[in-house]
């Protein structure tokens, strides 16, 4: 195989890599935002629970979570849809990302400051509306650089899906190595593809975040 068709063989894995990372990022977002606000605005027992969730998900390797969900929950217990490797991987990364994003948003809430909340409450907004209309839009701006690097992390971690045989970029790279016996080109090519997937986005979000923060004086 010439290098070009080798490259295109690997590139066919990129959509799957993107699907895993985008879906797990979104589930992390759906988990992380509520967890952060629960942690900040609700009582002690909730704080302890959120902290425990974060500690566990940040203290267990992503690979072990994937193996646990796929082989343990999916295949051994037969619980659908975890018997689908793609879903087990996405769910495992989503849970982990939820823990990370909860921390990112908690930092952002602190960055927005208590005064915004007090001002919103004094205008007569109930806490729930103040959170939705005042706090969340601003926390997003502060959280942007953090969210960018979290997304980049998910793209890189999605490569672990190859262990469960999901046909993404890494798995295709490995197949290429086994069929062509070329141990050099495929791996450098895929490392470069991952860099192309992570670098521009993280850099752009970083710049966008700091410009927006300056504009709004956050």
């Amino acid at each position, binding site marked *: 195989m010439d290098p070009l068709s080798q490259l295109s063989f690997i590139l066919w894995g990129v959509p799957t890599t993107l699907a895993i990372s985008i879906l797990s990022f979104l589930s992390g977002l759906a988990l992380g935002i509520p967890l952060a606000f629960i942690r900040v605005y609700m009582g002690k027992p909730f704080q302890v629970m959120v902290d425990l969730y974060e*500690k*566990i998900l*940040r*203290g*267990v*390797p*992503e*690979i*072990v*979570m994937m*193996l*646990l969900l796929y*082989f*343990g*929950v999916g*295949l*051994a*217990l037969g619980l659908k849809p975890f018997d689908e490797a793609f879903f087990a991987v996405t769910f495992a990364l989503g849970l982990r990302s939820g823990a990370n994003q909860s921390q990112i948003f908690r930092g952002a809430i602190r960055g927005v400051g208590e005064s915004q909340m007090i001002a919103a409450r004094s205008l007569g907004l109930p806490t729930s509306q103040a959170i939705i209309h005042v706090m969340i839009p601003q926390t997003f701006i502060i959280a942007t650089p953090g969210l960018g690097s979290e997304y*980049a992390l998910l*793209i*890189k*971690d*999605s*490569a*672990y899906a*190859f*262990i469960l045989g999901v046909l993404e*970029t*890494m798995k295709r*790279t*490995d197949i290429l*190595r086994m069929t062509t016996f070329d*141990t*050099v080109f495929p*791996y*450098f090519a*895929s*490392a*470069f593809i*991952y*860099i192309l997937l*992570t*670098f521009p986005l993280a850099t752009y979000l970083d710049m966008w975040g700091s410009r927006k923060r300056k504009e709004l004086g956050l």
Partner: protein
Amino acid sequence: MDFIIEFLPRIFDGFLVTIQVTFFGVIMGLALAIPLAIGDLYGGKIVSTIIKFYVEFFRGSALVAQLFIFYFSIPTLLNIRIDWFTVGLVAFTLNSAAYQKGYIKGAMESVYEDQMTAALSIGLSKVQAIIYVVLPQSLRIVIPAWSNEFCSLAKSTAALLTIGGKDLTAAGRTMASQTWRILESYTFIALIYFLWITTVMKALDILYNKVKIPGLEVSA
């Protein structure tokens, strides 16, 4: 519980591998990250461009790809043989150094200017100022970030399994496939990771509170 006891020696061996690779990687990574951070800050344009490429390669690409490059590509190119353990030590050190460089540079920048001016004005040379004034303060502030780096490195060592490493995760997989107690095996392994990672992070937290200089914190 019998099956766990039966597999304990194997799990213990795997655990030792995981601990060794993690500590080696994080400590040698620090040793490499300090010159990288100094080079980036004071080394001029060419040095800092080279360092940027190094960092972008290790931070931007998937860890599995890096492990494979060290396990398959480099031995082919250099015509040598490297076993998975050495690959683990080298790859995790280089990977961790790329991340730690960023943290240390950030910390050095935060203590840098006034302190540097003050140190130079009392007659220290630039090198002395870095060694005796900037670094001791930076290394204290960097502990929380360092603790996060330890955590993510400890977790990524599980990727050793992809190059046939016999680490804790691999031991768990062997246990799962031989006993068919799949859920229990992986839960047990997850628990070990959780306990040791949380313990070390707690210890670093205590260390940070012991050595920190009041009023001098990174506002990241």
